[in-house]
């Protein structure tokens, strides 16, 4: 390959949405392709993206949303393989309020926790409200952070509902703190909410990188696709078994549960469904005037060429 040493940036490597990356790493698929992949872990997808833009990382494993946003800012980024078909965003409500709040419409006047203002979890709430005819200002959005501070915020009653991703959701569920209202970890939920597939975890980079290093890109895609295929039909326990011990040692049961809840999210072959990017753009541009104003050629945000080649091997 043109570039046997590759640096991948990821915003939270141990997060379950990026599971296929760890699978490929743990099973040695990158090495099998003759690549020396170094995975740099960041706090959050936007930090990982900045590492790419700054030139210190070659590719990013992150959310598709970012590609769309950055296209609007004139950065020619493109996804080369899709790992998550569904965004995995979940809206839950504190158990005590479960009988009062049955749909997003009931959130009016309540405090909703999100990872960070301006993040996907935040827009997810806005989107749900908009679908019910409510305005963003009808709820109070509170940033609760990504990790256990989110748990703390719910348990202390600092927020009434929470829009978050794994592992926070399953953890809260297991602790009996929330009841899930809206769930996009699976096909039904995602289609009910977004009316179509919504691409999530993606391996992406600059178009220039892809053009300059087609072989390297191909091999990376090969490894990821192989990991996705390996995951097909595996049980949560089987997947957990190959994970680094650090991921599950604290509470294997909880981790297995999280994986089980998430297995449906992953793409079985890595292909971007054609409707996916449109859904993403539609949702994102609802709350971002700059994005709405920008002319974005969605066909440039991804390519299935590498995946197709990988699948024919």
């Amino acid at each position, binding site marked *: 390959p043109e570039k046997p040493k590759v640096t991948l940036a990821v915003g939270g490597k141990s997060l379950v949405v990026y599971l296929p990356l760890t699978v490929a790493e743990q099973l040695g698929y990158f090495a099998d392709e003759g690549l020396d992949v170094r995975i740099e872990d960041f706090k959050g997808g*936007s930090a990982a*993206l*900045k590492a790419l*833009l*700054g030139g210190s990382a070659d590719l990013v494993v992150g959310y598709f949303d970012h590609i769309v*946003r*950055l296209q609007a*800012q004139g*950065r020619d980024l493109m996804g080369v393989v899709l790992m998550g078909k569904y965004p995995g965003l979940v809206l839950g409500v504190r158990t005590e309020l479960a009988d009062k709040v049955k749909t997003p419409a009931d959130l009016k006047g309540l405090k909703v926790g999100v990872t*960070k*203002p*301006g*993040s996907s979890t*935040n827009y997810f709430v806005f989107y749900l409200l908009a679908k019910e005819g409510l305005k963003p200002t009808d709820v*109070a*959005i*509170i*940033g*609760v*952070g990504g*990790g*256990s*501070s989110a*748990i*703390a*915020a719910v*348990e*202390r009653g*600092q*927020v009434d509902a929470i829009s978050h991703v794994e592992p926070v959701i399953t953890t809260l569920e297991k602790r009996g703190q929330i009841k899930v209202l809206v769930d996009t970890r699976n096909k039904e939920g995602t289609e009910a909410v977004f009316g179509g597939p919504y691409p999530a975890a993606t391996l992406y980079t600059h178009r220039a990188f892809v053009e300059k290093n087609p072989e390297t890109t191909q091999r990376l895609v090969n490894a990821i696709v192989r990991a996705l295929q390996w995951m097909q039909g595996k049980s949560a326990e089987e997947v957990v078994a190959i994970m680094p011990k650090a991921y599950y040692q604290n509470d294997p049961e909880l981790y297995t549960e999280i994986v089980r809840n998430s297995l449906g999210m992953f793409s079985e072959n890595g292909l971007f469904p054609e409707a996916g990017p449109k859904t993403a753009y539609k949702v994102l541009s609802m709350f*971002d005037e700059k994005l709405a104003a920008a002319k974005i050629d969605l066909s440039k945000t991804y390519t299935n060429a590498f995946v197709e080649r990988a699948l024919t091997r």
Partner: protein
Amino acid sequence: MDKRRVRLLQLALLVFLVLGWEFSVRLGWVDAFFFSKPSEIALRIFEWFKSGEVYRHLWITLAETVLAFTSGTLVGVAFGLWLALSPVAAAVLDPFLKALNSVPRVILAPIFTLWFGLGIASKVALGFTLVFFIAFFNTYQGIREVSPVVLANARMLGAGRNQLLRHVYLPSAASWILSSLRTSVGFAVIGAVVGEYLGASAGLGYVISQAEGVFDTTSVFAGIVVLAVFVVLLDVAVSVVERRLLVWRPEPGQEGGTV
């Protein structure tokens, strides 16, 4: 040395930095995505103040900073005094304090949320843990630097423990303590902003965090600039206190009688 020349030089330096920045961006030497442009940042700040939306955030951050600063300083100074005057306690607690000071506060955020909720208190707590140690270490050392002759004199004149504190230890350690204030003003702000950044619903850190989420570097820098101006103003306040407390010192070059 005169005030006006200093102000002029400062202005010149500022203009130079700002222009350098502006042109580096415009000429494409640095990437606007990461650095934005001073002109845009200025515009953004102007808009913030014009629309008035920034006041609420500024006010919250100010409150957090001032609370963290005063509580951290007071407790740090008190603790420093106590330990400096109780050698055994100091020897025993020393490694514990050092160890505590090395804990990255960012990691403690969940615990702060758990204990203090998401409101002002948890940000104040975060700032407190930064300010406290700076005030503590400086006070501790300052007290130990007290001139033994002056101390002995005050004791012979019948000073009790509290009187020694008030009339000897504190004035003597004043320049140490004030110096710690200089450093910790900045850290108090950092505590507040990082706290907001990690989870909040208002404050400058919140604004910055939100801007970061949508890659709005201009707003991020606008936030930083507002912050910085804010700290410089706070520091002026500290300087005023310092000048009032240290009237008794020889100004450099005016030490006639002593030399």
